[in-house]
């Protein structure tokens, strides 16, 4: 066998397969030859009978005749000799025993035919023909019984009836070997032929096995390569899909960034305007308030001044919303439970939305805490509900839900500025007209409104957006035209314990005091107003227009200075810096900051530092009086 494959395992497998194929081929030959001999046996049997009937049908004894013994021999002995090989060839083809019986029977049949034909020399060729035919088996062992039968025939007849074989009555005891020799002579050629044939069969089996192995290898290689290609294709498809998703996410992120930058820009603009506005509005509101205090109830100017004050307050409200949107307002966050906020505002909300709209609340009993400015959260709820109301002119439902939710890495990765973790979700859903994509894209922009002129400021959702973002949360909107809108607000969950919400009672009476207050304000209008209010409330006032002057006052004033009321954003020296410089000079002096918007002086990311007293511009005289009194009292309490 040629060893084409150097792998020992494969070579062994090929050799085994070759053996299988060789055996299969051999078996096929055995079976086929068995069948051929079965047919031949039948033919020979019939031929023997025919020959007997033709050559020696009867035997005679004088005038008497009867069937010749040869006829009976042909029928019965021929039948017996043929029967078993035919039966075995039919029932047990391919078995070695079948071949040996056939070989034996074939040679016996030669003997019978020779006798039936009167020992004609021509019939002796049947012996050699039979040997040749037996070689069809390509099995050397088959020749053995055949040769033995022929040799035994000659040997035994040579012993008992030598004349019948050799034509003489006495022969050498080895004479039988001459006859057997000729048979062996033929056997030699048959041996060579069989060996060559078997060798060729083995070659064919080996080649077939190798071809099968190659085909198998080729097929498995093709399958393997196909699988690899399929895997690569899948990988590519996955990569393309991932790339597509990434591009989509990138586009969304870019859009979010663009939107955020736009909002930031608008916010900065609004914040800058609001700062100056607040100073102006402080002056307007306080002046009108003070004027109203001095006017008699029946004074015809009272209505005008009240109008001025009202307009100032509305303007202040707008400014607050602008600041809220631009995240420049000062938050005073507390740990709170959003369920409490919802419950607290429920009554007011029902009043706001009217009777045509059902307000449903679905609150999570085990809701987590958040840290936020409760007033601002009120504002968020109010703005969203008012928006929802305006989207349902013919009535509908507003559902307020709360829930705990975990934002995973995957979600956070796909949304800009969202961090993974636990959040508390506040959901406001309406069954209103919904928003189209264009509206959704612009809904948080300040002054963008779909309402009629005069019905909306365009600051409601902007405020919501600003408050939520400033509180470290996120807001997401899902809206379908004609079906409604859902706002989802996610605020970071905190483990701190919620504080009891305190209702901010209106301060009707301005508290009085006699302490000395150092007033520092660069804006003259505000400084004068504050000065006047403080004086009205009984305080001693030292006035400065900037930080350096205030420090001088601290050094030069001989009496105690109980409180420094200072603006935060001032040129040259901020209120915070002033407080730091003044502290060594007047360690007992309390500080009350006032500002229209935040910067990093006293707040960080819009959140007021712990323990810092603060009054937001624009304020009213009464508010200022309360804040001053509270700051002074806090100092007393602390010193006690």
């Amino acid at each position, binding site marked *: 066998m040629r060893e084409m494959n150097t792998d020992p395992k494969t070579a062994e497998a090929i050799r085994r397969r070759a053996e299988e194929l060789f055996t299969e081929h051999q078996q096929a030959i055995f079976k086929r030859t068995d069948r051929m001999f079965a047919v031949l046996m039948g033919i020979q049997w019939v031929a023997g009978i025919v020959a007997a009937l033709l050559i020696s049908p009867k035997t005679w004894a*004088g005038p008497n005749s009867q069937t010749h013994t040869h006829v009976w021999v042909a029928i019965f002995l021929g039948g017996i000799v043929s029967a078993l090989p035919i039966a075995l060839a039919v029932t047990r083809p391919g078995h070695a025993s079948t071949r040996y019986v056939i070989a034996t029977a074939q040679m016996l049949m030669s003997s019978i035919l020779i006798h039936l034909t009167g020992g004609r020399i021509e019939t002796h060729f049947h012996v050699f023909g039979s040997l040749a035919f037996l070689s069809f088996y390509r099995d050397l062992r088959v020749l053995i019984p055949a040769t033995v039968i022929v040799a035994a025939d000659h040997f035994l007849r040579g012993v008992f009836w030598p004349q019948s074989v050799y034509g*003489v009555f006495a022969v050498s005891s080895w004479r039988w070997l001459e006859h057997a020799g000729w048979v062996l002579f033929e056997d030699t050629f048959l041996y060579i032929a069989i060996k060559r044939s078997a060798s060729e069969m083995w070659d064919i089996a080996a080649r077939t096995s190798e071809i099968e192995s190659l085909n198998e290898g080729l097929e498995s290689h093709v399958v393997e390569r196909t699988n690899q290609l399929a895997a690569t294709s899948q990988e590519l498809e996955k990569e393309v899909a991932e790339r597509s998703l990434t591009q989509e996410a990138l586009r969304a992120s870019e859009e979010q960034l663009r939107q955020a930058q736009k909002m930031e820009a608008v916010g900065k603009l609004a914040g800058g305007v609001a700062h100056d506005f607040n100073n102006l509005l402080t002056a307007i509101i306080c002046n009108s308030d003070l004027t109203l205090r001095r006017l008699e109830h029946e004074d015809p100017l009272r209505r005008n001044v009240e109008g001025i004050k009202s307009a100032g307050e509305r303007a202040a409200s707008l400014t607050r919303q602008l600041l809220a949107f631009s995240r420049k307002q000062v938050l005073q966050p507390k740990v709170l439970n959003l369920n409490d906020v919802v419950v607290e505002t429920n009554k007011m909300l029902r009043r706001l939305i009217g009777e045509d709209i059902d307000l449903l609340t679905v609150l999570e009993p085990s809701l987590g805490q958040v840290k936020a400015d409760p007033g601002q959260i009120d504002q968020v709820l109010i703005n969203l509900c008012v928006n929802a109301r305006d989207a349902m002119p013919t009535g509908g439902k507003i559902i307020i839900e709360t829930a705990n939710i975990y934002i995973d890495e995957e979600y956070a990765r796909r949304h800009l500025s969202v961090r993974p973790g636990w959040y508390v979700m506040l959901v406001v859903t309406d069954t209103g007209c919904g928003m189209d994509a264009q509206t959704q894209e612009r809904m948080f922009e300040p002054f963008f409104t779909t309402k009629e002129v005069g019905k909306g400021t365009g600051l409601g959702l902007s405020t919501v957006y600003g408050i939520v973002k400033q509180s470290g949360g996120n807001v997401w909107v899902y809206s379908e035209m004609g079906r409604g809108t859902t706002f989802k607000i996610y605020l970071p969950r905190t483990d701190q314990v919620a504080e009891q919400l305190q209702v901010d009672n209106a301060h009707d009476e301005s508290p009085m005091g006699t302490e000395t207050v150092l007033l520092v304000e660069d804006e003259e209008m505000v400084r004068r107003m504050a000065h006047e209010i403080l004086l009205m409330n009984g305080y001693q006032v030292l006035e400065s227009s900037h930080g350096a002057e205030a420090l001088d006052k601290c050094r030069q004033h001989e009496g105690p200075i109980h409180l420094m009321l200072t603006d935060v954003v001032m040129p040259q020296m901020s209120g915070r810096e002033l407080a730091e410089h003044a502290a060594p000079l007047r360690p007992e002096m309390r500080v009350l900051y006032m500002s229209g918007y935040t910067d990093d002086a006293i707040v960080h990311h819009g959140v007021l530092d712990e323990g810092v007293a603060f009054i937001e511009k624009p304020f009213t005289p009464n508010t200022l009086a309360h804040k001053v009194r509270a700051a002074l009292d806090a100092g007393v309490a602390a010193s006690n």
Partner: protein
Amino acid sequence: MKFTKARILLLVVCVLWLSATGVGVGLLWDYENTPGTASAAPAQWPEASRLRRSADGATLVLLAHPHCPCTRASLGELSRLMAQAEGRVTAYVLFVKPRGFAVEWEKTDLWSSAEAIPGVRVVRDDEGVEAGRFRAATSGQVTLYDREGRLLFSGGITSARGHEGDNAGRAAIVSLLHTDEAGLDETPVFGCPLFAQSDECQTGKEVGHARDEH
């Protein structure tokens, strides 16, 4: 090898088959090699014979049954013998015709075969008269007399029943014709009984004076 029931059965069947065929072949061999009734031919040419003995050389007489298939081999051997004799012998083939048979009953293929042998005269022997004179009992019986009428040989010229081929009888006659010497002067005769003495061709087991030697 496991001896399962099937294998044992197969073995038994094969043994029985071999035995049966062995017995059958043995009987066949015995039949083929059993000679006919032995008879002692007259030592001198029977004077009563209608056949004319050759004065120049030997005279051969073969007694045959015209329907005996075994005799076909004897005629074949006679043909070879005549070829080998090279004219040194006058040969007669007498076909015994029993009484009561139709005309030309004796004219069989054997008659034709005998006629076809050069130098052989074919004669009908009604009721076996001549056969009786030569004391022949089995078809294929050959007697050979010299020019003086002395018996040289008596017996068959086949090696077995109906079996052509080299045989001691032919060899002895050829030798006598060429050298006046023969290894033996009697051989067994294989053929059908010329007369109704038994059912089979072989009617007796006694072999005349056949010598078991070279």
